[in-house]
């Protein structure tokens, strides 16, 4: 029998075969379809995936157990109750009992031991006044020096540039990721931190026995005073802090009395960034807005909350003056860039460079900031 014979009547007669029979989904034919690489490949990847998952799990377990075992849970400076934690304040003896301190602190201060709650409602316990402070926020550094305790600073961030003396203190890194190792190496007994600080860093520092105070100030300017008072308490100088706060308050009030009386409130736009970097300003819920209001101006950014604005919004608001930071000759740049160059304030030359650190950082320098703002917004006033 010849295989090729008789089975097919010829191709043109194919038309009468119904389509349903001919169509087969997921054919094993020549066409391999839409981008699948074939079951074999996927199966293999599944195997590798499972292996990778377990390897990763094992690795992270090993790492975290190493971390946990390495440091003990200790509380506060001056107490070394957990076996394995190294006492670094000299003279402290391990008694295994809580609350037992044998050493005399640098100055026996009746306030200590004390416990304060920070902005995250964490308990910060100190048994003696801290002597070696690391500041992880520029405003904390400024507050520390303002309160006259700058000598106690042993570490700061790269951004802490005021006052001059602060720059001579060794740095522990940046705002978000300071080096915990450095802080430990500096034998710090208190870390002052602010909003950028990461929760993991706090926990890490706590686990090696260094107390961390995270101080935030929210929209109400009163919060800044509270912050300074808390730091003063932590340092064991609450009355001095109170005095300094009153000082600040009085100075600010002095300026406010003058500015409040002005009949006109110029429309001020605080330009944080513009153009390709996005239009950012101080929204109604920021402390900067508060300062501008106190300086006798109307903050154009009040139409938003937060920081992100739009160039169209800026055009619509058409401010009387624009405040920019120093550096890069921003007023010139604005003159060349559309649509900023058509803004009234730019055309009439009312773009002013100011020192933004004293305004951005919530702390004692806000007095200067306020004064600066008032001078720019109401040059006609004579300020105390």
């Amino acid at each position, binding site marked *: 029998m010849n295989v090729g014979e008789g089975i097919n009547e010829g191709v043109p007669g194919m038309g009468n075969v119904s389509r349903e029979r001919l169509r087969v989904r997921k054919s094993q034919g020549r066409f391999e379809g*839409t981008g699948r690489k074939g079951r074999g490949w996927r199966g293999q990847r599944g195997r590798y995936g499972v292996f990778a998952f377990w390897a990763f799990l094992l690795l992270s377990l090993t790492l975290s157990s190493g971390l946990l075992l390495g440091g003990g849970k200790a509380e506060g400076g001056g107490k070394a109750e957990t076996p394995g934690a190294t006492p670094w304040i000299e003279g402290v003896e391990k008694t295994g009992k809580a609350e037992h301190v044998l050493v005399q602190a640098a100055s026996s201060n009746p306030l200590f031991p004390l416990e304060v709650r920070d902005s995250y409602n964490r308990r910060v316990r100190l048994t003696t006044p801290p002597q070696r402070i690391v500041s992880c926020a520029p405003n904390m550094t400024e507050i520390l020096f303002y309160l006259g305790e700058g000598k106690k600073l042993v570490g700061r961030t790269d951004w802490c540039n005021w006052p001059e003396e602060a720059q001579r203190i060794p740095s522990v890194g940046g705002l978000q990721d300071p080096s915990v190792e450095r802080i430990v190496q500096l034998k710090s007994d208190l870390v002052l931190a602010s909003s950028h600080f990461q929760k993991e860093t706090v926990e890490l520092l706590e686990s090696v026995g260094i107390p961390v105070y995270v101080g935030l100030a929210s929209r109400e300017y009163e919060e800044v005073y509270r912050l300074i008072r808390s730091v003063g308490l932590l340092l064991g100088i609450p009355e001095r802090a109170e005095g300094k706060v009153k000082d600040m308050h009085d100075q600010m009030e002095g300026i406010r009395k003058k500015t409040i009386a002005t009949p006109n409130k110029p429309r001020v736009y605080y330009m944080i960034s513009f*153009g390709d970097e*996005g239009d950012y300003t101080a929204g109604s819920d920021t402390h900067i807005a508060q300062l501008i209001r106190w300086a006798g101006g109307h903050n154009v950014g009040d139409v*938003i909350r937060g920081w992100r604005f739009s160039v169209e919004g800026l055009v*619509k608001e058409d401010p009387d003056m624009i405040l920019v930071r120093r550096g890069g000759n921003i007023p010139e740049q604005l003159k060349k860039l559309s649509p900023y160059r058509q803004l009234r304030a730019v055309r009439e030359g009312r773009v002013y460079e100011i020192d933004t650190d004293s305004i951005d950082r919530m702390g004692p320098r806000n007095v200067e900031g306020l004064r600066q703002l008032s001078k720019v917004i109401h040059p006609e006033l004579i300020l105390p």
Partner: protein
Amino acid sequence: MIQEFYRIERRKELGALLLAILCAGGAILYLSVGVVPVGLGESLRILLGYREGIDPGHLLAIEGIRLPRLIAALLVGAGLALSGTAYQSLFQNRLADPFVTGISAGAVLGTTLAILLGFSSGFLGLGGITLFSFLGAMGTSLVVFLLLGVLKRASSATILLIGISLNFFLSAVVSLLLFLHRNRIESIVLWTMGSVASATRDKVFFALPVFLLGAAGIFASSRSLDYLVLGEDIARTHGIRVPRVRFRIILFASLLTSVCVSLSGVVGFVGLVTPNMARILTGTRHRSVLVYAALLGALFFLGADLLAKTLLSPSELPVGVVTSLLGVPVFASLVWKSSRRIY
């Protein structure tokens, strides 16, 4: 049967016309919407050249802000769609997007350098960021070509691998730079999220000829793309000189992508989703697919930017965020519907 074939072809043409009309409508809507209260009638009058009785603030909003932004949005949408289509066909992969050759990382590096070196604004009227991101993107393409020249066997897979490696490498360099200059992180990250808010007339003037060049090049390669979809071997038997054509396509697509990224930052999903949508609507012939893709891309981007500037008014979202959020459900439905066609 042949009748029906032509009927379907006519329908496709009508569809393209419809899309074009939608684009035009979308453009007019786009111009009339925004923080500054310029109404539809007034914006039309400004477009037509009337100046009497027009508030200068409104004029500035339309001519100085919205019009350049509109053109930028259309260019970026169409450009990303075109280069996405080209790459999907070239690499025979429906998941390819305009950034597979590592261009996005190069653009981000350019921007980072611009910001860190202080060239970020007011440079040649273009903005240093625009210029540097474009150079960074084209520079990366150059590196791709150089590497391909060095390697003996240059297949599609090789190109993709080079793109992936460049992406990783350049991103690592950017991370290093960011780490050393942490105060500028925010500006850079925000730029990468994508935004056409800073479009100006100067930028658009620079971008338009480059865009047209790139788009023309891609359209001219329609026939080659038709065959490349089948694979290199088959394409060769149809007389397509594969290495040469591949070089040309990557060159023009890179040009397009670079100019888009310089205008808007890295905006995802447009270049991935619109080619697939276009193919569902119009089949596989690139002369039609490219037209549909460009129109759909422009429309998609326009819609996304409209949302970006109105959802949180007077604040704004980065348009890249909106395209990603919109893109995911669109993409999911595409995948689900992928076996059903409309034509």
